[in-house]
């Protein structure tokens, strides 16, 4: 693979579509004047997403090969995933279970029987000449995912799920067009990796909603531990179907549907949709072409130029000649197996998000951040909150100190050096007035490197509560040395005491700033 240099394009599962042997580019000029089109006609953007999530199985979908990412090319292969003559597939039970898990979490119905079909096309990264997929009896059907409305965080949008089906991934073609030669190398490590293709209804109305849907889906899939959803590793990929419904003088006009393939980041999904919306408006202005003239087209996304581009289509590419795979028996999904999986699902992220707001009084944003970090963070928060007695303060400590440390030290919450009960005790000290935030941060920093309880840490840092007499004496000294401050405060500038708080802490770091402030003001008032 070292020799693959120059323009390297990943043509995942491209089939005849977007054949990289004919990667043609048709840039579209977009004069700024026509951008006004949307001001003239009310436009509704119609988006449906097809998401391919790689399932976190130990082995591939139909053979015993490992699915580890980033291994040397063609090292995780066997006769089955190489499509050797005489080789036969055997279904991976774990993939079935993970799919059912996902389907149930997406409110899908799980049919009692699911079967396998061959989707046929010729391509070098598809060694059998067909992909084993599911055509008319997908493992999950007819569900939905509720997402937060990006335009109004207090309301939700109900996004329908048409189906979710299992299929094997294709390999990877790498095209080297350097030095004027066209050379293609094939890596079949990914061939046979289980994918769950989740197809939404065209219920999304903006790029922001598409991004919200993807985020929520990714959260759900990682929460369920069915997929790693690493977009840069290709374990989550999306195709976006986009078109526009224009209201032209009261008449509804639909533009041709464009499927933008292989979007490999949330950002690209948004940018591709935004670009398509503009492009389709311009194209419609130019040509007047509607869905009746060209029902569906396939486009690619070029990251460098930030444009979608039409992929060449062939007449026959539309006909995959699906038929039931005679090498595999239909899979029966018994009720009790489905029930067992359902009962093991636990609380799903959307429910947790609401519960954190109701039970602990967190704001939506805070609850959302915690939930987005996954089940381990939710556990961490709940345990810490139960020890601190102040969930809101606990959540702000997590958002600031804990998450910052996770980032800086590159650690997981599961192995975070300060266990949740200890963080809770620390926050409790603040709530009790025994520690101020600044000193608590010192203790936290100390605890990051010392596996000790909070009281031991306080002793080690020499932190002890300053007695009332000591505090009075300290304040008297400061006032005596700074008559100007006394004068200022008496003149109505209360904030003048601020200057003394820092001085107090310089003399005795354990002095609680709040207490210092109050004592100073009391003394001045008595003076």
């Amino acid at each position, binding site marked *: 693979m070292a020799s693959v240099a120059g323009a390297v394009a990943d043509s995942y599962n491209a089939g005849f579509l977007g*054949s990289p*042997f*004919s990667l043609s580019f048709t840039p579209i000029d977009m004069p700024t004047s026509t951008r006004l089109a949307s001001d003239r006609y009310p436009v509704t953007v119609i988006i449906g997403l097809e998401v391919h999530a790689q399932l976190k199985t130990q082995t591939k979908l139909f053979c015993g090969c490992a699915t580890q990412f980033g291994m040397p090319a063609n090292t995780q292969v066997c*006769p089955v995933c*190489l*499509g*050797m*003559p*005489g*080789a*036969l*597939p*055997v*279904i991976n039970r774990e993939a079935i279970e993970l799919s059912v898990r996902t389907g149930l979490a997406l409110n899908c119905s799980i049919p009692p029987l699911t079967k396998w079909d*061959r989707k*046929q096309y*010729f391509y*070098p990264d598809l*060694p*059998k*000449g*067909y992909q084993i997929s599911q055509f008319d009896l997908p493992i999950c059907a007819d569900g939905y995912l509720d997402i937060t409305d990006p335009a109004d965080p207090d309301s939700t949008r109900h996004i329908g799920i048409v189906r979710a089906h299992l299929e094997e991934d294709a390999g990877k073609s790498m095209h080297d067009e350097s030095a004027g030669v*066209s050379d293609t190398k*094939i890596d079949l490590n990914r061939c046979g990796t289980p994918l769950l293709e989740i197809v939404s209804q065209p219920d999304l109305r903006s790029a922001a909603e598409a991004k919200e849907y993807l985020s929520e889906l990714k959260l759900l899939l990682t929460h369920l531990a069915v997929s790693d959803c690493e977009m840069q590793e290709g374990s989550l990929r999306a195709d976006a179907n986009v078109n526009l419904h224009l209201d032209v003088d009261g008449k509804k006009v639909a533009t041709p549907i464009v499927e933008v393939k292989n979007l490999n980041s949330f950002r690209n999904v948004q940018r591709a949709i935004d670009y398509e919306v503009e492009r389709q408006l311009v194209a419609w202005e130019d040509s007047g072409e509607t869905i009746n003239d060209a029902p569906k087209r396939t486009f690619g996304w070029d990251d460098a130029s930030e444009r979608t581009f039409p992929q060449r289509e062939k007449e026959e590419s*539309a*006909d995959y*000649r699906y*038929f039931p795979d*005679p*090498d*595999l*028996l239909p899979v029966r999904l018994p009720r009790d197996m489905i029930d067992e999986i359902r009962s093991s699902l636990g609380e799903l992220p959307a429910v947790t998000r609401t519960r954190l707001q109701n039970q602990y009084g967190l704001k939506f944003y805070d609850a959302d951040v915690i939930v987005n970090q996954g089940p381990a963070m939710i556990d961490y928060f709940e345990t810490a909150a139960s020890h601190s007695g102040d969930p809101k303060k606990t959540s702000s400590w997590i958002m600031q100190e804990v998450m910052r440390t996770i980032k800086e030290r590159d650690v997981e919450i599961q192995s975070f050096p300060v266990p949740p009960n200890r963080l809770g005790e620390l926050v409790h000290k603040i709530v009790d007035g025994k520690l101020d935030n600044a000193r608590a941060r010192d203790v936290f920093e100390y605890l990051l490197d010392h596996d000790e309880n909070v009281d031991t840490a306080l002793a080690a840092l020499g932190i002890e509560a300053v007695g009332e007499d000591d505090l009075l004496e300290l304040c008297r000294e400061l006032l005596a040395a700074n008559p100007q401050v006394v004068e200022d405060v008496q003149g109505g500038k209360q904030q003048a005491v601020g200057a003394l708080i820092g001085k107090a802490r310089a003399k005795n770091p354990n002095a609680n700033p709040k207490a210092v402030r109050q004592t100073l003001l009391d003394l001045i008032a008595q003076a």
Partner: protein
Amino acid sequence: MLDSTSTILELLRSGDATAREVTEQALRAIGATQPSINAYTHVAYDAALNAAEAVDRDRKAGRPLPPLAGLPVAIKDVLCTADMPTTCSSNMLRNFTPPYDATIVANLKRAGAIVIGKTNMDEFAMGASTETSAMGLTRNPWDEDRTPGGSSGGAAAAVASGTVPLSIGTDTGGSIRQPAAFCGITGLKPTYGRCSRLGLVAFASSLDQAGPLGWSVEDVAIGLQAMAGYDPADSTSVDQEVPDLQSAVATDNLQGVRIGVLRDSIDQEGVAPSVRKAVSDAEKVFTDLGAEIVEVSLRHSPYWVPTYYVIAPCEASSNLSRFDGAHYGHRQSAQDADGAVDESLAKAEPLEAMYRASRAAGFGSEVKRRIMVGTYALSAGYYDAYYNQALKVRRLIRGDYDTAFESVDLLLGPVTPSPAFGLGENIDDPIAMYLCDLFTVGANLAGVPALSLPAGVDDEGLPVGIQLQAPVMQEAKLIAAGAGFQSKTEYHRLRPSGFIVS
């Protein structure tokens, strides 16, 4: 000696023959017959002798030996062998050696069998005469101007010419039974799922099944016992114990067994008188053995061949997609040696041109015909009218068998409409060739086991076969009835003239 599995095993066990002697004799027989018969695509001289010597050493050392230790067998070239080429008699795979043994090959090796070579076949098992082989045609040992049948023509001829006592073929629409009948030997197509398909290069996955060919029912029972069994690596393999088939051979009493004669097929136009006579003679033999003969008909049998010739090409068109020149097998550039590009490929992209050139050069015309038919029948707009319709009819055909087996234990009828036909006689007439499968494809469509037995000789001295069919997983019933039949008849003892007797 090389015409009886049980005799060879007895000689080997008693020490009256060494495995090396038996293997050398088989290799000599191949040397003598190969130039005229051409039953083999590959002969494993060194590997076979080495394996034989290993058996002899083990026997000398008193180590326990598996049941078939030292028995030479030939394997149809559609079954993967890790130490020999597996060509499917196609230019596409002329230089292909798989990285693994088919499960049934591994089973036979584990049972001690010595794989002596690979046998010729119709290309990718598509044909009924072994004339579509890219490795040259195989001749019928009974009459070298006739075909040995197909597609397992090499496997049948290897036995009938006395080179091995047992060979392994595959049967998708009659490819074991028809050549067995043409070559005067016994052939058994087991229940679909009885023998693993792992390593059987698929023609039509829902119909393919490997099975043994030998002179007698006893010999094929020995072969089936060794190769059969559940294989978790084949999802369509059946998880059921293989019964003791030897004890079924010992049965010569068919008291209480009801045999249904398929009168409709016998009376059909175009069935040779010698075939009709063989079936009616067999009825008498079975009656004498105590069986009760009744008449049955399988209502949808007129639809067998049309149904088969939709389903099999559909599956084949898909199974053979992997032979595209990209990963293994024949690859051809669109350019000829002088760099000139074939006119029909000039406008194609380089990748597509490579696919088209490779497949055009790698496949023979019968294979291409079936790929075309299957591709067409699975295409949008035709799927329901052809493939889906064929699946529906297939269910009716299975239903016919279920109904029939409610009242009878076995079905009796012809294997083929006629004895072996001449070389070149049907090769330009695909329909005539397809009609060779008239009586055999039912068992494949229904998945039931079926046995082809030598049961007559025609005026020209050619062997004539009969067919017994049983309910799924009831091979023991077939073997009992077949062994009973052979205990009262001598047809399985007839040998072609010039047969090597040693």
